[in-house]
């Protein structure tokens, strides 16, 4: 277990190193921040002074060394836009994104199990057809479009839910549902097919022949065995949401999370903020991946962690 963890951590460090390099190269390619950050009427001298002050006029090599040195102390520099430590902004916005992902994925996970299992009970039946078509349909809706339509319907026409932003609990409903739909579709289809598979297995037939009650089989065996692929996919959904797939939802609903902040940082060529966001997210993904590995070990004894 220890050796396994070490391996995974080492691999995680490689990921972080790779991300660091890409981030550094990419952020240095984003247009000249002085031009975007200063007013249109600023003079060239003012722009040069700005670049000097931000250390953007030093050679790239020197910038990279400072960059890596600062990273190790979680110092990403001050956001050009807000003139305060970028990491501070990241930590302010991260909870909003995590809450959105938590709620959205929570919804997807809790709904997908009963719906998928229901469909699997009688493949080809009405419930199954509804679930399969609903799943395919859910996978086909672009989130930005779905979000806009829901704002139009629930917020503007019916006026029962707020249009955008954060505030009370009701503000969570539309963004969380929008975020949940594709994940729900994927998870539901997965539960359905794994349960169908399990119910066709020899051991289930034997158990039924021996007179074991069906719901014991379903809940005791079939669903439990379907758990490993389910958790894998749910973990993957979590990671990809974290990896930026909330950007679209946050943009549509003006949700002040990391994704919207990243878009703003791009708009304003705010290198330091952008790299802080990407870097923090990369580290979180590495950690979540390691946690998932450990979780598998606990759930499925067949997986050996050397």
């Amino acid at each position, binding site marked *: 277990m220890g050796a*396994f963890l070490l391996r995974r951590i080492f*691999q995680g460090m*490689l*990921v972080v190193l*790779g*991300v660091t390099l890409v*981030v550094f*190269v990419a*952020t240095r*390619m*984003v247009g000249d921040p002085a031009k975007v950050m200063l007013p249109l009427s600023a003079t060239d001298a003012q722009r040069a002074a700005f670049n000097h002050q931000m250390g953007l006029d030093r050679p790239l090599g020197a910038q990279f060394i400072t960059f890596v040195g600062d990273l190790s102390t979680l110092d990403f520099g001050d956001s050009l836009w807000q003139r305060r430590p970028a990491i501070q902004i990241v930590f302010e916005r991260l909870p909003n994104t995590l809450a959105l992902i938590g709620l959205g994925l929570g919804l997807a996970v809790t709904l997908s199990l009963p719906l998928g299992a229901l469909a699997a009970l009688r493949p080809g039946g009405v419930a199954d057809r509804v679930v*399969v078509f609903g799943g*395919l*349909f859910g*996978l*086909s*809706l*672009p989130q*930005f*479009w779905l979000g*806009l*339509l829901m704002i*139009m319907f629930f917020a503007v026409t019916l006026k029962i839910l707020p249009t955008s932003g954060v505030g009370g609990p009701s503000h969570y409903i539309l963004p969380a549902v929008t975020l949940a739909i594709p994940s729900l579709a*994927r998870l539901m*289809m*997965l539960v359905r*097919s*794994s349960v169908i*598979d399990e119910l066709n297995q020899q051991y289930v037939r034997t158990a039924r022949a021996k007179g074991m009650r069906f719901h014991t089989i379903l809940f005791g065996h079939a669903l439990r065995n379907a758990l490993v*692929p*389910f958790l*894998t*996919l749910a973990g*993957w959904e979590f990671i*990809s949401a*974290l*990896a*930026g*797939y909330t*950007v*679209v939802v946050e*943009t549509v609903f003006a949700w002040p999370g990391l994704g919207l902040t*990243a*878009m703003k940082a*791009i708009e304003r060529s705010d290198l330091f903020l*952008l790299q802080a*966001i*990407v870097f923090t*997210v*990369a580290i979180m*993904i*590495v950690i979540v991946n390691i946690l998932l*590995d450990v979780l*598998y*070990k606990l759930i*499925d004894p*067949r*997986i*050996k962690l*050397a």
Partner: protein
Amino acid sequence: MAVTTHAAPPTAAKPRSGSFRPIALELWHDKAGMIGFTVIVLLILMAVFAPLIAPYDPAIQSVAARLKPPAWLPKGSWEHVLGTDQLGRDVLSRVIYGARASLLVGTSVVLLAGTFGVLFGLFAGFKGGRIDDLMMRLVDIQVAFPGLLMILLIISAVGPSLSTMIVVLAVTNWMIYARVVRGIVLSVRQTPYVEAAEMIGCKPGRVLFKHILPNLTSPLLTLGILEFTNIVLAEAAMSFLGLGVQPPATSWGLDVSNGKDYIFVAWWLITFPGLSISITVLSINLFANWLRVTTDPQEREKRFARLKAVERRRNGAPAGAPAKA
């Protein structure tokens, strides 16, 4: 050409002339799949023959004919069946031309990422041992990158354009092909007859073409089609965010983005391009669903999940335990 069937992953009935009719018949019986297939064909025709079909040049503006509603509404006219946008451009023509961006990006990304991923996976699976280990570790590393954020970062650095988007999407989407292919290669090489073939001195190239490639066709086809839908959605999302297709070119995502500011006076601006994306993706999904059931009893989500589980096992067992397909 007699395709030997192997114990490992399912082999598709190869669509030869002889076996085409039963397949077509089967498709005909699956109504949803048939509808999906028909829509796909129509979409492709629409994209290819856009200049012939579209009533107007999608970029032609008419400041005098702005925001005209679709024909069936009170102020609409049959000159612009689906109405006009904020610059007086014909929505129908833009929807027709928009299919080009989706299909072009989808096809090129799947081909680019697919080719690279397949070669990568073949090589890793074939070499095995340390090289395989190293190569798959590379895949793992890239998979753990914060995908979309990196895409946004790179595009904002390089500057958005159609070609940038294609390259970036390909660079961030090849890993799944590599994993699938490598898994299949490993499992096929484990089968007794391939072991035997290698033992009696069959050249790797022969083993590859005779025994491994036929096993790859079906899963790759299904995977490619499903990846295609993901790319179509990704293209739309990126164009929506302003980081994809740039005007005067058009794309459905871009049109939804342009139209969203006018949502209160001209609902048709976001409705038709949005519907087009949904219909396209839904049709492909319906068709792929049929294809999967027909050619491959294992569904993709499950395969993907298993793949991950296998990979976890592999990571746990450095000996390189064979992938269980």
